[in-house]
């Protein structure tokens, strides 16, 4: 187990190096940021100063070595707009995003998993079709549309819930619903198909032969096995929520890292954007490692090599 984690961490470091290299190259391919950041009438001296401040003097190799060297010390540059270290800006915002993720996941699983089980139990019936329709709707509705619709109905028309910014629990409702709707659909579909497969198993037949109640057969023997693919989805969704809450956080003016990404792009804050991408990559690597370790707990057949 320890060796497995150590090896995965090594792989993560290698992967991060690749990500950092790609981010670095892309940053250099999209034009000279100095031209974008300074007004047209800037003096040559201004340009030279800024170029030096951004570590853009020297050859590309020199630039990369400086960039990598600083990155190793936890310095991913300074946000141009906020005049603060990019890493610090990121970690200031991160808790706000992390505050949303568990609720969205909880909503997705609390609705999606039971719906999937019920759909599998009543395969082909109107219940199954209704759950399927909900799933398609959940996947098909883009979050900018759903978010704005929710704001329109519950904030503008009914005035029940706030439409933007962080605050008390009522501020969480609409963003969590917007994020969770997509997850409900995913969890429902994967639970349904996994349950249908598991329910045909011989061990389910043996559980019935023992005389166990249908509740125990379905919700213990079947569901525990069906949760293995659900866990895979879990990893994908957490990663998606970390990277992909950009739209939802922007719609609801939620000060998380999704909105931070959006701001970094809009304001051409390229050191910040570099930092955000690299730090998000670290988070995703961490989540994937966590999910792989969780597998071993849910399915005793998996022994981490």
């Amino acid at each position, binding site marked *: 187990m320890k060796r497995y984690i150590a090896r995965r961490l090594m792989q993560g470091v290698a992967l991060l190096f690749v990500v950092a290299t790609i981010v670095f190259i892309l940053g250099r391919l999209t034009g000279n940021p100095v031209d974008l950041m300074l007004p047209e009438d800037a003096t040559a001296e201004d340009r030279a100063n800024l170029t030096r401040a951004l570590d853009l003097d020297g050859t590309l190799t020199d630039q990369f070595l400086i960039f990598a060297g600083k990155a190793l010390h936890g310095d991913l540059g300074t946000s141009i707009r906020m005049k603060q270290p990019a890493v610090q800006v990121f970690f200031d915002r991160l808790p706000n995003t992390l505050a949303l993720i568990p609720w969205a996941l909880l909503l997705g699983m609390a609705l999606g998993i039971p719906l999937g089980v019920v759909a599998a139990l009543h395969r082909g019936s109107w219940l199954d079709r209704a759950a399927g329709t909900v799933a398609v709707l959940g996947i098909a509705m883009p979050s900018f549309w759903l978010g704005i619709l929710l704001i329109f109905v519950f904030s503008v028309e009914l005035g029940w819930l706030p439409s933007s910014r962080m605050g008390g629990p009522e501020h969480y409702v609409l963003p969590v619903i917007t994020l969770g709707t997509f997850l409900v659909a995913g969890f429902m579909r994967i639970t349904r198909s996994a349950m249908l497969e598991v329910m045909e198993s*011989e*061990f389910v*037949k*043996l*559980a019935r*032969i023992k005389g166990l109640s249908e509740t125990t057969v379905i919700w213990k023997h079947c569901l*525990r096995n069906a949760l293995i693919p659900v866990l895979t989805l879990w990893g994908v969704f957490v990663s998606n929520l970390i990277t992909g809450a950009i739209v939802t956080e922007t719609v609801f003016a939620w000060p998380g890292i999704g909105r931070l990404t959006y701001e970094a792009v809009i304001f051409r804050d390229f050191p910040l954007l570099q930092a955000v991408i690299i730090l998000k990559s670290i988070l995703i690597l961490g989540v994937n490692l966590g999910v792989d370790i969780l597998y071993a707990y849910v399915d*005793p057949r998996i022994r981490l090599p």
Partner: protein
Amino acid sequence: MSDTPSGDTVLEVRDLHTHFFLRRGVVKAVDGVSFSLKRGEVLGLVGESGCGKSLTALSLMRLLPKGGARTIKGEVLLGGENLLERTPAEMRAIRGRRLSMVLQDPQTSLNPVFTVGDQLREAIERRRKGASLAEIMKEAVAALRRVEIAAPEQRIGQYPHQMSGGMKQRVVGAIAISGEPEVLIADEPTTALDVTIQLQYLKLLKRLQAENGMAILFITHDFGVVGRMCDRVAVMYAGRIVECGPVKQIFEAPSHPYTRALIASVPKMTGTVGRLTTIEGQPPSLMDLPKGCRFASRCGLVEQRCLDAYPATVQVGEAHTADCWKVSPS
């Protein structure tokens, strides 16, 4: 091998019909099966694949596969009460406690994500309501010891994938009999095991049966196993039992041409080495059964009357019957 044991009938199946109702038509997989089982007796149910043996067993358990299978006619009398009239809740109380079953494939019969002890506990708990966990686990260890699993204290905390196939099948056996059922259905329990393990398992089943006096319905396609395990044997063909009688009589003097062909096709260890005897042709489609004898198309002795009508059941000896026009009553 003993003669037919005396004692009360614990299970009686009368004129059981279980059909698959499909869009393409009706598959008459079990089509008028009758037999009875006495206390402490082992009845073999023999026939080739697809003749309806397993579906007969699942009909008795009332655990028919999804997808159109229904028992439409007949009676399954366990201790005199008709199981087909029980409610689902009443059936659950009967399963495991009075009527239990061992499945064919040990690799898939145990739930991979729960420990062996946990799966045994569920079965024992039903008999020992209100007992403490420690008591139940003690009993689970004893149940594993009874099926000859070494170091049961350690095995109890293990998962199925940590055991061999033969060991898993013994665990399945321990689970199936932990409710002390009156009747155990064993559906080809050794088919998926190594030949060397098969004999061990059969001996174990025999011993357990001798210990607690349960009756066993032993489903197999292997006549060799029948000779070792069973007191009586029922031969099934295309959804019906065509011959039934004490093992000795069936082996020495099979009456039905199908039984004779089946016994002839068992490879023998003695005598000249020749070609393996096989039965030519295919069984009839269960969706389109002939009105006459179902074996007629493959039978060497076929006559016009075999094609015209299904033969009546003929008493060929004491407790020995056959459905054939060509046999004469004793």
